[in-house]
């Protein structure tokens, strides 16, 4: 975008309410209590299933991978904004940086899974059961990769890499808030390319480890990008909803305009189409070749109630929002964009449930109370911690050299 010469009409971001201070002082505590209550209720309801918490663990993994995907999606967006030297995105970048730095919560949430795994529990991952490995030569061949210790080491490596990237961007951005040094922007841009490559690789491996190995004999090379692209959809939807929520709470009123929402809507549209491209690319090849070892993953996910969920995901995660978000008017209308963001967030969760839950149960109503309790529980903790990070910092990178450009940004 070319700069316009209308300084007089530019809204002044400095007049905005820039921090969370004074906003619902009890909010974090309420979220923590709600989270603990919902999680405990989910755990109790999960015990009723009488399957050694198999169902509960899968629901937990669904909730965890949902929140992790939003975190990773935010990290991808932060680095992508730097890689493309985007001016418009400065207004919303801090929220993404906070969501990315919220990685601590998913890391903590993954700890119980790792502990259970080290314990020898195979309720989630069948490859952790020596009897299964003894029965299946392929599992024995994969044991060097798919067993508790390498799995644990890799998990630590992934979280360390993401943590390094997320901290790097939040720290430099905050440093710039204080010093106003434009060299920091150059530095963040320089590292964005390598960071994106690292995110793509670690994200792919993490998706292989944590979601694909639920069915340890199945493999799909595109699976990691499928997960990450869904994460970008989730992150954008979360960002849109958070920005609108903050504006309703009288924050960032002039920093984020309809022009920014328009661009976020475009990105959301692009991300959901990309997700559809990934999902279809994975499906088409497996459907075409029709090899038993590959179709085995789709078999339980397209049969019975999960078949209906698959259809709902195809419609709700791709076809319906495609036409819903196609028009410029939908992207520029707050109400329409908020609706589609909430809609896509819900379907992104359903997509992950469709990936994880069929390993636990094949019959009955696909979405249960346990899943929702776990989602509310983990989600509350996630929001509370993000709130904690955001507390005491500006919600917009005030000294970013591109902030004036972002403020004057207009779609043609």
């Amino acid at each position, binding site marked *: 975008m070319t700069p316009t010469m209308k300084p007089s009409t530019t809204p002044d971001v400095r007049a905005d309410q820039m921090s969370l201070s004074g906003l619902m002082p009890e909010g974090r505590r309420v979220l923590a209590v709600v989270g603990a209550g919902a999680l405990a209720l989910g755990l109790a309801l999960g015990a009723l299933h009488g399957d050694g918490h198999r169902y509960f663990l899968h629901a937990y993994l669904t909730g965890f991978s949902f929140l992790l995907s939003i975190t990773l999606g935010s990290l991808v967006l932060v680095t992508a904004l730097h890689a493309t030297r985007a001016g418009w995105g400065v207004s919303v970048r801090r929220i993404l940086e906070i969501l990315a730095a919220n990685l601590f919560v998913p890391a903590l949430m993954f700890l119980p899974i790792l502990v259970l795994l080290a314990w020898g529990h195979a309720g989630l991952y069948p490859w952790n059961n020596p009897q299964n490995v003894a029965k299946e030569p392929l599992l024995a061949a994969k044991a060097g990769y798919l067993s508790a210790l390498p799995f644990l080491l890799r998990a630590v490596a992934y979280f360390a890499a993401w943590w390094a990237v997320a901290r790097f961007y939040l720290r430099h951005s905050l440093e710039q808030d204080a010093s106003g040094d434009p060299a920091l922007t150059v530095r963040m841009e320089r590292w964005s390319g390598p960071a994106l490559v690292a995110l793509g690789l670690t994200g792919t491996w993490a998706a292989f480890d944590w979601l694909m190995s639920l069915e340890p004999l199945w493999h799909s090379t595109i699976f990691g990008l499928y997960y990450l692209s869904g994460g970008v959809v989730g992150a954008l939807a979360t960002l849109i909803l958070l920005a609108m929520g903050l504006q309703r709470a009288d924050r960032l009123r002039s920093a984020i305009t309809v022009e920014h929402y328009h661009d976020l809507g475009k990105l959301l549209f692009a991300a959901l189409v990309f997700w559809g491209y990934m999902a279809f690319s994975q499906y088409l090849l497996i*459907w075409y070749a029709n090899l038993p070892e590959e179709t085995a993953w789709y078999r339980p996910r397209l049969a019975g109630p999960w078949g209906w969920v698959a259809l709902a995901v195809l419609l709700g995660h791709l076809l319906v929002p495609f036409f819903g978000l196609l028009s410029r008017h939908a992207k520029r209308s707050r109400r329409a964009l908020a609706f589609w963001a909430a809609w896509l967030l819900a379907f992104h969760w359903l997509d992950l449930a469709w990936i994880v839950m069929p390993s636990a149960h094949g019959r009955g109503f696909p979405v249960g109370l346990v899943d929702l309790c776990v989602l509310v529980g983990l989600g509350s903790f996630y929001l509370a911690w993000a709130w904690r990070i955001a507390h005491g910092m500006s919600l917009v990178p005030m000294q970013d050299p591109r902030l004036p450009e972002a403020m004057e940004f207009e779609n043609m």
Partner: protein
Amino acid sequence: MTETRSTTENAGSPPILAGLLAEFDGPDALLAAAEKVRQAGYCRWDAHSPYPVHGLDRAMGIRPTLLPWLVLGAGIAGAAVALHLQWWTNAVDYPLITSAKPRFSLPANIPVAFELIVLLSALAAFAGCLALNRLPQFWHPVFTARRFRRATSDGFFLSVEAADPRFDPSRTRALLESLGASAIEPCHEPAEGRRIPRALYRLAMIALALAVLPPLWIARVRHSKSERPRIHPIQDMDFQPRYQSQAASPLFADGRAMRPALPGTIADGQLDADEHLHRGRAGNAWATTFPVPVHITRENLDRGRRRYNIFCAPCHGLTGGPAPDDLKRQGKPDKLLYGMVALRAAERIEGEQPGYTGWVMPRSLHEPSVVGQPVGQLFNTITHGLNTMPAYEAQVPVEDRWRIVLYVRALQRSQNARLEDVPEDRRTDLK
């Protein structure tokens, strides 16, 4: 306020005024002026700036473009064309089963549909953008204003066309001046003498003539014969290592390159599981009724008559051979009641090879032994042949064979009709 003379170079007739071009000092002045010109009710005018000025669309009152709808239409058309093409070629015109998938299977058709959606949408966006902007346009009256050259570097202009109904040379000029224009210049229609040079026309003619040559040459080689092998501009898969049919191959244990079909394999659409329809059987006996798809209707009977006249009449004759009464009366059938092929064969045997047993005269369809046969048996005879009669399985589709049986039954009835078969009101005609 300065004013420069226009740069038109004609000395003779006075130049025709095409409009006024006003220069403004910057984007803000241009925005304010555009707002006022729109409010003054002008409709044929434009603003020119070296870069897109935010808010200019709104100031000029430009409505949202139609282009997205054109692109959406093109995209939907692309999907429709791609899916229809694949459905028609793969499921209707040349049914082909690939990987045991249904002939029309949506997942396999998505990639082509996707590509065509993208292609047609992109072409519609490109062509639509040009068309809606009335491009390409090689000349415009604003080009006659000297200042206009700066429109792509640092000039901000507003031009009002003389064709605008509200245009008045002095009043429009006054309006533009009142809006703070730093300079106003008239624009002119092209002068009479300024035409496209003749040399350009000649060049275009030569180019056109040359452009006709390649298609002419292609047409010539396509319709002429040559001893030399054809030119392969695009190799595609014309030369690839492969086995000829029936060739040997050391790769397989049986030494054959062509792989035999698996036991129990049935060609697509040839399962023929309906015993009644495909073999004329009902249990262990010949079927005595017609199978479901062939109902006894006028249409089926007519179709049966036409098939009979084509495939059966050459030997059996148009009436199906001599009637029982003729047989009884003469002891020997009247050859003239048979078809041409049968007659010719009988003649040749009689005249050239008496005693030849390789040919059997066709049976009259009115012989009691034929009339008494169940329809299933007649169908079986048509399908597999009998004596010298060949099998018609390959030539006549199964439903048509049943229709022929239907017509044969009608022929037999015509030679053995009783009074009760005639409608009551017509019986008096027979007496």
